[in-house]
């Protein structure tokens, strides 16, 4: 009897061990991501990763950006463990890392963590620890039509001021030909118009909050920013600009309707792609403008990055995947399959030192210079209590930023004056910040 019992227990233990081994060998990683060209390309190349790591299967969940944020937040807050790898940005990483929601990332030497662009690495680190690995990163810059500028007799310097931009916008506008001097974001949203307007305000010396977290929309700097933004858009911008976001402006620029477009550096690869852009051969680049006398070029910095939630039960496999997807090797893999132009930009210094990349990507030098110039840890020339370049890295910013964005969009649509938009933004933000406990 005892022998039988022992045999049974032994068999059970063996089965359990075998089961455990099998579980460790065969891991399914669920990767939550957004739909954009670089991510879709990575999905297509996943077979290369699974071939090199036969025990790991990768399942993709692609969602619209805001739905993804909502889903992932619910999952992390409830310790759901539905995802093993998350695609998140520089806005979420510091907030979530401080909450203990993300696993710190440590890679071996092969990964060459020092090759990551310092500004990007810093934006994804908290207390010196890296919490997400950048998949692609961007700053903002001016993209302009060299042919239109030449025809209008204007020169856009490599380091322009807002006065240069406004003069060029005026010279390049010919509404009878549906040719608009400047295209900027107008669609309301913290990641849409407020991304641009916040960066522009930074370059005007404005700040969202003073050191006591009091909103500053009643300041002279914000008034000047708003007045100039509205004047440029109303006089030299395309019609219906209050509903134009990144994608709408991309389309307008590709169709040759914009003289200039100031937006994310990642757009450069789209507007210079002859397959989709009618103006591919006539695009020039310049740094994000600044106000005369100030040395602040907006400090826009965003990186779509891969992170591991603390609730994941496959953290080792997730780290292996992230190390692959954000490695130098991955960049080379993309280049070998689709050419250097398709390499995910903005994350590694070595990419910008690569002569082949420099040759194929005419925007490379300006992109790296824009990213290196961004200091999102100190976005304004004035004293500020927050970090973040084109956003404020506090959890409340999604709601507040979108509410303020609606005021600016309404002002652009002619539904209210600039003064009213700023006054409403000031009142609403003060109320929300008081409610959230920032203002005592």
């Amino acid at each position, binding site marked *: 009897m005892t022998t039988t019992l022992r045999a049974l227990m032994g068999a059970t233990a063996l089965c359990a061990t075998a089961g455990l081994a099998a579980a460790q060998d065969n891991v399914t990683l*669920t990767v*939550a991501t*957004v*739909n*954009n*060209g670089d991510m*879709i390309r990575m*999905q297509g190349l996943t077979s290369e990763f699974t071939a090199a790591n036969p025990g790991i299967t990768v*399942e*993709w*969940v*692609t*969602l*619209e*950006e805001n*739905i993804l944020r909502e*889903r992932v937040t*619910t999952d992390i807050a*409830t*310790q*759901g463990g*539905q*995802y093993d790898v998350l695609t998140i940005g520089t806005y979420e990483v510091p907030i979530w890392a401080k909450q203990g929601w993300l696993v710190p990332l440590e890679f071996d030497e092969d990964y060459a963590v020092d090759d990551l662009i310092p500004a990007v690495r810093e934006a994804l680190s908290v207390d010196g620890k890296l919490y997400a690995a950048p998949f692609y990163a961007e700053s903002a810059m001016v993209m302009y039509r060299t042919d239109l500028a030449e025809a209008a007799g204007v020169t856009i310097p490599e380091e322009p001021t807002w006065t240069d931009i406004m003069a060029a916008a005026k010279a390049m506008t010919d509404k009878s030909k549906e040719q608009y001097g400047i295209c900027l974001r107008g669609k309301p949203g913290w*990641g849409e118009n407020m991304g641009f307007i916040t960066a522009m305000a930074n370059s005007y010396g404005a700040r969202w909050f003073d050191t006591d977290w009091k909103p500053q929309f009643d300041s002279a700097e914000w008034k000047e920013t708003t007045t100039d933004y509205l004047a440029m858009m109303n006089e030299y911008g395309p019609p219906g600009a209050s509903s134009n976001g*990144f*994608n*709408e402006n*991309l*389309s307008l620029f*590709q*169709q040759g309707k914009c003289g200039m477009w100031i937006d*994310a550096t*990642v*757009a450069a690869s*789209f507007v210079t792609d002859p397959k*989709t852009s009618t103006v591919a051969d006539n695009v020039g680049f310049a740094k994000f403008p600044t106000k005369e006398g100030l040395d602040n070029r907006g400090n826009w910095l965003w990186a779509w990055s891969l992170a591991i939630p603390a609730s994941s039960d496959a953290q080792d496999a997730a780290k292996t995947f992230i190390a692959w997807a954000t490695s130098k090797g991955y960049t080379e893999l993309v280049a070998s399959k689709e050419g250097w132009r398709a390499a995910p930009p903005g994350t590694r210094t070595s990419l910008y030192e690569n002569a082949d990349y420099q040759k194929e990507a005419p925007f490379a030098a300006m992109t790296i210079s824009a990213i290196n110039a961004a200091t999102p840890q100190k976005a304004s020339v004035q004293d500020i209590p927050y970090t973040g370049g084109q956003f404020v890295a506090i959890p409340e910013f999604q709601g507040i930023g979108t509410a303020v964005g609606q005021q600016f969009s309404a002002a652009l649509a002619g539904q209210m004056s600039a003064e009213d938009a700023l006054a409403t933004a000031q009142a609403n933000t003060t109320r929300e910040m008081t409610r959230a406990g920032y203002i005592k």
Partner: protein
Amino acid sequence: MARATSRNAKIGWTAAAWFVALLIFFPILYTIITSLKTEQEAIAGFDLIPSLTLESYQTVQSQNNYWRPFTNSVILAVGSTILALIVAIPAAWAMAFSPTRRTKDILMWMLSTKMMPAVAVLVPIYLIFLRTGLMDTRIGLTVLLMLINLPIVVWMLYTYFREIPGEILEAARMDGATLRDEILYVLTPMAIPGIASTLLLNIILAWNEAFWTIQLTTTNAAPLSAFIASFSSPQGLFWAKLSAASTMAIAPILILGWFSQKQLVRGLTFGAVK
């Protein structure tokens, strides 16, 4: 003269009906038109003439496998509807033929559960799904969709059953029919048009449900609503691809509705004119 007026009136009403029908159908039509445009045309502005390219359909199919979410949609919609009917037929029968003083209150209470915004119960339901291992499973979502649509199913069936004279059921009982026989062989066949339209409407509601099906799934149980949501892009043109994905997602239910429209209309107007 009278005939002429009535013919004119008829033409007028027909034109008005066509106008309203087109107005209601237009968003779907425009989605289909957009799916046949290039990405540049799709974002360029309002235009009813597409370049008739199938490029977006090719991209959609090459990026995501359509058949897995399609299968999930079929299982969720049909499964939750059958489950809802199994629960709702006896409930509606009891309320229609053996009403009590509280029947109306119960019906109203059931309907009141539909008045709360879904997001208000997201966290409790999310936690229940997590703790019970139902997250991202078809069975969990089938039961949930059944519960969500149950009040409407009970209400519709109750309305249809009320139209059936109780005397017929009494006659069946006189002939020795048991309760089971009465429901299965007398009541159900008489209420077939009503049940059919309830079934069709419930399938449509379950097919189009896009809050819970996105919140409670990742990969295994994700239906076509999640498939559509995956084509919205923050940086890059996507309207044509999104429209192609939407067209592919609504096509099955649109075809089903087309073929069963007589049944649907008959069921929805059942007992309306006595």
